[in-house]
């Protein structure tokens, strides 16, 4: 057991902290995370290697060797200082790593730089009304016509489609092949004729997602990542990684500290909620869980750093446990506040900018999205515990 990262890394940590101390005022705050200030901040972070750290210099990144510990230190320091850690979005988090692994040199040159600077916003076209948990059942059709794919069909849960410049999209290009082998991974401009985006208002009251319709959308043949029919492998190259990072323990720790502060300030009949043994016990229960997840994450990290260390099921359970835990944590904050916990939007009694209600609902969304809790349980039991698969249901003809 050795929890130190060593003097070189502690030096790096203080570098990051020093940077944050003198630059944090330049970081964007609030919800406009795509404006000029956000872009300038992103540029500064890339220059210092605090984001897009391992993306090669030739594509606009910082060009560092992969170093899991430094990545973690950066995340920890930004989270501790509560400073925006740079642009997110599915282009940066999903498409760029996919292109780096599976894209052609031309695709890397064309797309990576504008994506990481925030000049090219992407949306992800994976799920369909008929293909949710069973994603490989997707049916949006791509038919080759000369030098162009002609796309017809519908996607759903396309977050940021209303502002996206481009989409990376899974389509069925080989209708006669087995379902996992008939999919291709296409990239195309959202301004292409035949695309219609309809906002999908969710329980938070906001349109975090959209429905996106394609009618005879024509896409140049070469805008494919990987080969025809390889789309499933291309998409899966990074899907597992997305799951692990949906609800990091770091953030849960920050939130429980905020919850403790909330309980020290909120009162009922003049008594602080932190002094109420019932609510305090609920707090302590959740704090214990957050603690367990923090240490689980240390084990995940350690297994990455030390070849030969068995991670057990520590990686496989993080999406399921992490999202459920955050939902419970945010829900406790609401209970602590009682009716005040219901405050939303412009209510003058709003606490924490409405973040408790927003995250309470948002994490219910994450329990469902990115592979539902039920799908996670299938994965844990079948791949983790070696239990038999559900027999295939034969369709009645």
């Amino acid at each position: 057991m050795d929890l130190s990262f060593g003097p070189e890394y502690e030096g790096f940590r203080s570098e990051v902290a020093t940077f944050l101390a003198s630059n944090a005022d330049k970081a964007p705050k609030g919800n406009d995370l795509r404006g000029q200030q956000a872009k300038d901040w992103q540029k500064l972070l890339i220059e210092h290697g605090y984001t897009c750290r391992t993306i090669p210099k030739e594509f606009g990144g910082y060009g560092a060797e992969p170093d899991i510990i430094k990545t973690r230190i950066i995340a920890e320091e930004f989270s501790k200082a509560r400073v925006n850690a740079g642009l997110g979005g599915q282009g940066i988090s999903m498409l760029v790593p996919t292109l780096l692994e599976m894209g052609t040199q031309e695709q890397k040159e064309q797309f990576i730089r504008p994506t990481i600077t925030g000049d090219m916003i992407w949306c992800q076209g994976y799920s369909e009304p008929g293909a949710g948990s069973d994603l490989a059942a997707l049916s949006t059709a791509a038919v080759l016509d000369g030098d162009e794919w002609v796309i017809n069909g519908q996607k759903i849960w396309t977050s940021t489609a209303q502002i996206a410049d481009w989409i990376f999209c899974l389509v069925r290009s080989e209708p006669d092949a087995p379902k996992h082998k008939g999919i291709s991974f296409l990239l195309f401009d959202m301004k292409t004729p035949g695309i219609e985006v309809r906002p999908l208002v969710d329980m938070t009251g906001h349109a975090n997602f959209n429905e996106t319709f394609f009618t005879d959308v024509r896409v140049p043949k070469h805008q494919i990542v990987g080969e025809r029919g390889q789309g499933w492998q291309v998409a899966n190259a990074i899907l597992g990684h997305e799951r692990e990072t949906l609800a990091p323990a770091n953030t849960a720790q920050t939130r429980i500290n905020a919850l403790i502060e909330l309980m020290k300030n909120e009162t009922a009949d003049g008594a602080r909620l932190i002094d109420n043994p019932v609510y305090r016990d609920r707090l302590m229960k959740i704090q214990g869980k957050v603690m367990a997840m923090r240490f689980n994450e240390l084990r995940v990290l350690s297994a990455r750093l030390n070849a030969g260390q068995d991670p057990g099921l520590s990686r496989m359970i993080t999406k399921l446990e992490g999202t459920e835990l955050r939902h419970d944590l945010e829900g406790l904050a609401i209970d602590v506040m009682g009716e005040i916990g219901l405050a939303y939007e412009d209510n003058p009694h709003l606490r924490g900018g409405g973040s408790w209600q927003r995250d309470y609902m948002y994490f219910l969304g994450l329990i469902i999205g990115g592979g539902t809790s039920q799908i996670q349980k299938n994965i844990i039991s079948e791949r983790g515990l070696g239990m038999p698969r559900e027999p295939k249901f034969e369709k009645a003809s």
Partner: protein
Amino acid sequence: MQFGLSEEQILLLDNVNRFLDDNSPLDRVRAYADGGDDADIWAGLTELGVPALLIPEAQGGIGLDPLDAAIVAESLGAHITPSPFLGTAVMAPTALVASGGKYDDLLAEIAAGTHRVGIAFSEAIKRRNDAQVEARDGRLFGKSLFAFDADADSYLVADQKQHLYLVAADDPGLTRTHLTTVDKTRRTVELTYDNAAAQSVSTDVRVFESVLDIGRVAIAADTMGAAQNMLDQAVEYAKQREQFNRPIGSFQAVKHMCAEMAAQLEPCRSMVWFAGHALAELPEEARVTACHTKAHLAEVAQFVAKTATEVHGGMGFTDLVGLHYWFKRCGANRQWLGAPEFVRQEAAVLQGLTD
């Protein structure tokens, strides 16, 4: 950075596991539950160095760390082994070593496996009803409930002030009454003190706390092992047992129960490791972590014990399969050295969240 067991620790775990696979199978545990003793098991564990684990080399021990003790505890829990490990090898040495060289002879006897020390702490944690321990001029009065183990040679007793005393089991002022509990893998007693001769081991509350902390982490590790074993048995059973012409483990209703157990239990392993490590290396985090680990493991194990039994269907409820021994071990661990609600309250106090 390396968060996990070292090669030596994995070797230690393998050695203890192998010994207990051979010497503490369910039939052997049943023999103890039916009134037998655990002498051969403790003799074997002594050969492996288990009672000497936490005793410094200078005092005739092996000088390993709390994490190593947690590893052994996990294996003992997995095998639901009857043994005086918790009191004799974990808690008593921690108290006795803290008292300087005063107890070197006793520590040597402990290391040699010839002296067992039981623990009577309940009255210093949360005393129940009329139980209480009072010390006057080197003499003890009152009574302790649910002291472990029944056949100790001496007892480490904590009074309400959390001062520690050592009382010989054969002291004329001490009466020992067996208290039957649901957990037949260990035996507890009521100790009544009527002018019992007591050696003062420590009047420093911090010593009591360090003994309690390591005891709690060891219990959490024991719980971890027991719960993991129940999950393993449930998964194995669900793969074998067929109904409706298919293994019941292929039904999502069943496999999701197993996934939920695994998902809750897996972080517990890291938590126990960290708690063990913190006792030796991170004093400012050690106490809160020990509390949370004890309480969290108790909650997860309660869920696992119930769910793993349900996966076994009717067989889980029978004595034939014997799953109930693990169920009851988890249940006893939950109450020993502080029930979860009280332990979480301590965690809150330690963080200054309440008085």
